[in-house]
């Protein structure tokens, strides 16, 4: 879960990292005032949950309060990388002598925490790293390690800091590492770490991602207003609706509604539809043991999507049992009704009971089942995907 720049800076500051003292603004007038208080010049930084702001117009320098006001008006009215701009952080303009890079993340392959630093930071760090792998320094730590100051000094020496600057940067390295450990971070990054003409080291930007799954042990974050949030850019209305109902859902630009079971088969099923010449209208994770009610809601979401021409359904009952699945489908058929052709396959845990429920419902109200083809373990899932592609083509 990504934090806003101003939130990340608050956490850095707690660990003694010098950060730019910015003002968080919600209106152009506030931005104007903030720039006035900075002697007429300021950096306007859109607070959005995405990187690459600078290149996307999310960071602007204002040379006067008036210009700040005008730039803020435009920024508040625009979207940056798909995000509406609700807050602008007004930072002082730094006299930059040099930009460095510092980051801490997890190396999943080696199961280590890795500290990364480069004497060349800023927007082009990734390209710099590709071209100059030896100038990007790394140090691995065990997950249970703290950082000692001598390790920070040693790392600062590699980055070519000396004397007073070495002391400053060693303290920043320790602060960054401690921040990473203190909040169960997946990423803590300072880019750029600025050396000013005045000789100070200061974090001009700040990026932190914390592990959602560890939020339960960080009530201090909730107290700061940092709570679970959606990380992606602007959502479609349908994605918003799905999210409000707690359904993991993503719109795609095809026409086959995907109701695929677990996330793993969600991804593979999407590939299959493509292999057979179709285009899915969505990703969805309908696994993890959802209730019949939730399954019914998922189907409503697909059925009401005008782009969807046919629905592909699959259930391999593991933790999500087939009887619950059948109940959900029947609930949908009865309460809402299916307006598109649908093909599905159901097997796995409790499949016998699933089949029985379908048979019973069909006997009761055969008309509900007119547009749905239900298969079992005897039909390969590939045939179901092919059939869905056919149904979508026929429906055009």
């Amino acid at each position, binding site marked *: 879960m990504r934090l806003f720049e101003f939130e990340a800076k608050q956490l850095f500051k707690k660990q003694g990292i010098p950060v730019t003292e910015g003002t968080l603004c919600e209106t152009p007038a506030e931005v104007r005032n903030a720039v006035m208080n900075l002697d007429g010049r300021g950096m306007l930084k859109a607070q959005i949950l995405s*990187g690459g702001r600078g290149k996307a117009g999310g960071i602007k320098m204002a040379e006067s309060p008036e210009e700040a006001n005008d730039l803020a008006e435009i920024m508040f009215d625009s979207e940056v990388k798909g995000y509406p701009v609700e807050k602008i952080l007004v930072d002082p303009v730094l006299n930059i002598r040099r930009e460095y*890079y510092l*980051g*801490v*993340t*997890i*190396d*999943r*392959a080696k*199961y280590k925490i*890795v500290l*990364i630093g480069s004497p060349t930071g800023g927007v082009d*760090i*990734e390209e710099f*790293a590709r071209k100059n792998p030896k100038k*990007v320094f*790394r140090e691995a730590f*065990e*997950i*249970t390690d703290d950082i000692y100051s001598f390790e920070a000094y040693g790392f600062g020496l590699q980055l070519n800091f000396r004397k007073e600057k070495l002391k400053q940067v060693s303290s920043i390295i320790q602060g960054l590492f401690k921040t990473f450990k203190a909040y*169960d971070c*997946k*990423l803590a*990054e300072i*880019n750029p770490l600025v050396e000013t003409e005045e000789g100070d080291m200061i974090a001009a930007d700040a*990026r932190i*991602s914390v*592990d*959602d*799954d*560890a939020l*339960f*042990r960080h009530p201090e974050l909730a107290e700061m207003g940092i709570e679970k949030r959606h990380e992606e850019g602007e959502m479609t209305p349908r994605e918003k609706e799905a999210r409000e109902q707690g359904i993991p859902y993503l719109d795609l630009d095809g026409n086959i509604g995907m109701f*695929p079971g*677990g*996330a*793993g*088969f969600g*991804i*593979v099923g*999407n*590939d*299959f539809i*493509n*292999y057979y010449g179709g285009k899915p209208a969505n*990703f969805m994770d309908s*696994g*993890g043991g959802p209730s019949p009610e939730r399954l019914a809601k998922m189907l409503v979401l697909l059925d009401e999507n005008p782009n969807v021409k046919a629905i592909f359904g699959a259930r*391999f*009952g*593991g*933790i999500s049992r087939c009887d619950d699945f059948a109940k959900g489908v029947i609930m949908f058929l009865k309460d809402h009704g299916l307006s598109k052709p649908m093909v599905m396959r159901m*097997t*796995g*845990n409790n*499949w016998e009971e699933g089949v029985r429920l379908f048979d019973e419902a069909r006997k009761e109200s055969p008309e509900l089942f007119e547009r749905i083809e239900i298969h079992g*373990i005897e039909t*390969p*899932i*590939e045939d179901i995907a092919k059939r869905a592609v056919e149904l979508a083509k026929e429906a055009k």
Partner: protein
Amino acid sequence: MAILVDKDSKILVQGITGTAGRFHTKRMKEYGTNIVAGTSPGKGGEIVEDVAVYDTVEFAMDSTGADTSVIFLPAQFVKEAAIEAIWAGMKLVVVIPEHIPIFDMMEIRKEAKRYGSTVIGGNTPGIISPGQVNLGIMPDIAFKRGKIGTVSRSGSITYYVADTLTRTGYGETTCVGLGGDPVLGSTFNDILKMFEEDPETEAVVMCGEIGGVYEEIARDTIQRMKKPVIAMIGGVHAPPGKRMGHAGAIVEGSMGTARTKLKALESAGAKPAKTFLDIPRLLKEAGIEPVEES
């Protein structure tokens, strides 16, 4: 023979008194899995599904000789439970729950390496050695004893692959769900090496998906393997996943897309399967015949 678990495995259920623990203990026992004990601190002495409950893993092992543990506990209790099992000397610890904090999983892996234990998961459907042991939450319908080993990041893919192998008469030796979490107790690397050593397994199907690096880092292992490896990677048509900042890009380089994964695995000699139906075809091409005609 099988890898990780077989009919001689003596299984302990950590969290046996919870709803999930109780339900799946019943299911696993019905399959014939040799569940010898359960744990639930403060409930030692109770009986659940004919299984004796102990307060600690150590006590349960001393009393029953359990050598394998499966964990059914809320995510925040998993770290302690796994470390308890590892320290007590469990050979294998299967972590079913999802949403385990990454730091916790890293620490579990560290302790497992230190004490020579294998941890599978988190967020895994478990492991099944058909006809012998069903350890976890997998549906048994898809599985039949045979000659192919499977290892997969996703539960549903595990079922579909087994379903295909079963229907085409190959059957499975052991099917391992690595788990869906970003940091895992075991990776393809670890499991492929075990299949290579297993006399009963004639070929391995590995199923990965976009994101992470565990497919790519299995490259060298596959290259050294004598047995055929069939690889399926989900997400060829998915939008690319997001990187974890610049640091992620620096640490993981270009790894993480379906394309890089397929390329790494193919260059090591794995045969790519686009759909499940490709699997029996590729097995035939590798000269491996079904156990029985389908």
